[in-house]
């Protein structure tokens, strides 16, 4: 029985039936990590001992006849920008190479309370800036489906670990597509929740008005289960939404007959690979077969999402990353005579090229004389992009598109041209700008590589996104395929 290939809800059944123990489950994943990690390189830090200790606690509970929760004993891993008390949190940056947080992020606290053993921390693009995980200061993570290709980014380690069977689920963060695009490239489920649905407390900030934490899972039911564990209002995050939170599994299995699904024509045009287009066409047919009505729709300001994003996100980043000055934590350059020189040298040596590029861009966009022309203009166009979605959701239950215009690309193919790399996120940026939820599932394969299907819905409409994704998944079964690794 390949325990590393099963979703959490099946493993929970096996634990409850006493067919397996939580210790066996953690050991199966540690073994899988030993086998495939030399190829995949998803982990920054491993925490095997703590995971085994947690598994023993769960086993004792089961042995005593106590009930266990749906994620109790289910091994997980976390993107290395989520603060973990006493465990190194590097953001894959030289700047934080030695940073050990003195507290847990709210999502980490919640998953600890849910009893999920932590296997370790996962590689990413430095400070979550990138679309390929090539910007990690330490090493690139490989795509488990083709080791010559990138896993996507910035949560590349989090996507690759789940795809390769190195964790049952993981958490990443998504500022412009950093959960959904790697989920698409690695053929797993990835969700960016509605802005405010998951607390950002303890997430190392990149662009505060766009960042959201969300799950990577093997199937849609697991995504709902992890959302049940991490969503909710948190007084420690002032942008956390004080609303009633649903049971995210509640609508799974219900029919989507009669739903109206919009396919934005702007997402199906230039730059879309023919293989991806073919998968999307086939997926649309599946939704028709499920009784939904699929129609072309328009989000007219889509072409402006990329320039808006690349002004707003770097502007917010330049402000958030001002804190890395070599005083309170992280890297400090040697040999500076005064404090300003120490700041400048520390930041020059501690940050990589992409992070510096965005700090420069953001600082310029916010600087005196240019604020109105760039930052304010971008915020105004952000309003127009949000209005596009408001209007579309008056007519449609959900919007369906590719997650990325291409499948995973080879290493080095886009590193010389920042704009070409940014185009990888062209289908995902708008959901962050509008604050709405976006879910990527495996929509099929093109040339042996997984193609992501993105479902976007109204704010706080995650249960219905999951309902539609579940219906598709049950009908097609693409999610059951795993890459051939270490066999």
């Amino acid at each position, binding site marked *: 029985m390949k325990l590393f290939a099963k979703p959490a809800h099946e493993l929970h059944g096996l634990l409850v039936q006493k067919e397996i123990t939580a210790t066996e489950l953690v050991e199966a994943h540690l073994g899988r990590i030993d086998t495939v990690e030399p190829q995949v390189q998803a982990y920054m830090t491993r925490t095997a001992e703590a995971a085994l200790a947690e598994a023993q606690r769960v086993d004792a509970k089961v042995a005593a006849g106590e009930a266990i929760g749906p994620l109790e004993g289910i091994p997980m891993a976390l993107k290395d920008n989520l603060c973990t008390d006493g465990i190194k949190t590097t953001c894959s940056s030289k700047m934080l190479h030695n940073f050990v947080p003195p507290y847990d992020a709210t999502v980490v606290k919640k998953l600890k309370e849910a009893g999920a053993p932590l296997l370790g921390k996962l590689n990413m693009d430095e400070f979550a800036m990138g679309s390929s995980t090539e910007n990690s200061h330490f090493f690139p993570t490989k795509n488990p489906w083709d080791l010559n290709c990138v896993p996507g980014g910035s949560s590349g380690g989090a996507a690759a670990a789940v795809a390769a069977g190195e964790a049952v689920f993981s958490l990443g963060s998504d500022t412009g597509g950093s959960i959904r695009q790697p989920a698409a490239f690695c053929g797993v489920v990835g969700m960016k929740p509605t802005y405010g649905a998951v607390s950002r407390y303890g997430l190392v900030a990149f662009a505060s008005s766009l960042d959201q934490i969300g799950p990577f899972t093997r199937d849609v039911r697991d995504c709902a289960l992890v959302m049940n564990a991490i969503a909710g209002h948190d007084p420690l995050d002032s942008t956390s939404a004080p609303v009633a939170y649903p049971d995210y599994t509640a609508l799974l299995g219900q029919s989507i007959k009669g739903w109206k699904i919009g396919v934005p024509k702007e997402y199906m045009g230039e730059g879309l690979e023919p293989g991806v287009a073919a998968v999307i066409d086939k997926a649309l047919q599946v939704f028709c077969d499920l009784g939904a009505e699929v129609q072309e729709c328009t989000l007219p300001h889509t072409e402006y999402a990329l320039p808006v994003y*690349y002004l707003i996100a770097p502007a917010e980043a330049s402000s958030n990353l001002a804190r890395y000055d070599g005083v*309170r934590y992280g*890297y400090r350059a040697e040999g500076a005579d005064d404090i300003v020189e120490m700041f400048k040298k520390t930041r*020059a040596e501690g940050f990589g090229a992409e992070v510096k590029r965005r700090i420069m861009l953001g600082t310029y966009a916010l600087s005196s004389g240019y604020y109105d022309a760039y930052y304010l203009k971008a*915020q105004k166009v*952000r*309003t*127009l992009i949000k209005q596009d979605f408001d209007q579309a959701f008056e007519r449609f239950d959900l919007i369906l598109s590719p997650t990325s215009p291409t499948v995973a690309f080879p290493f080095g193919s886009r590193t010389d041209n920042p704009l070409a790399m940014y185009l990888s996120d062209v289908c995902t940026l708008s959901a962050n700008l509008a*604050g709405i939820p976006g879910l990527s599932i495996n929509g099929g394969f093109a040339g042996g590589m997984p193609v992501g299907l993105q479902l976007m819905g109204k704010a706080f409409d995650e249960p219905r996104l999951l309902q539609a994704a579940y219906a598709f998944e049950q009908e097609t079964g693409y999610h059951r395929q795993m890459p051939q690794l270490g066999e």
Partner: protein
Amino acid sequence: MSLTKAEVEHVAMLARLALTDDEVAMYTTQLNAILDYAQRLEALDTSAVAPTAHVFPLHNVFRDDVVRPSMEQAKIVANAPEEEDGFFRVPRIV
């Protein structure tokens, strides 16, 4: 609107980044390419559009002003590159 090397050096100073000459040259080229791309926003008339700083209505979040325990000092300075007697130590400021 084209960014000069001198402006890039000024921005680097504002951002507290020591850049090499090669980096200044590279960022001048790359930032100009990105800003050229951003120029397409000029095609939109936004004179009557309100800016979105935040997607949902934001309100001030208040709590009662009560004394609560803070994190202990030793834990806070544990990550400092240099500390002395529970304080952060830095190079000469004035």
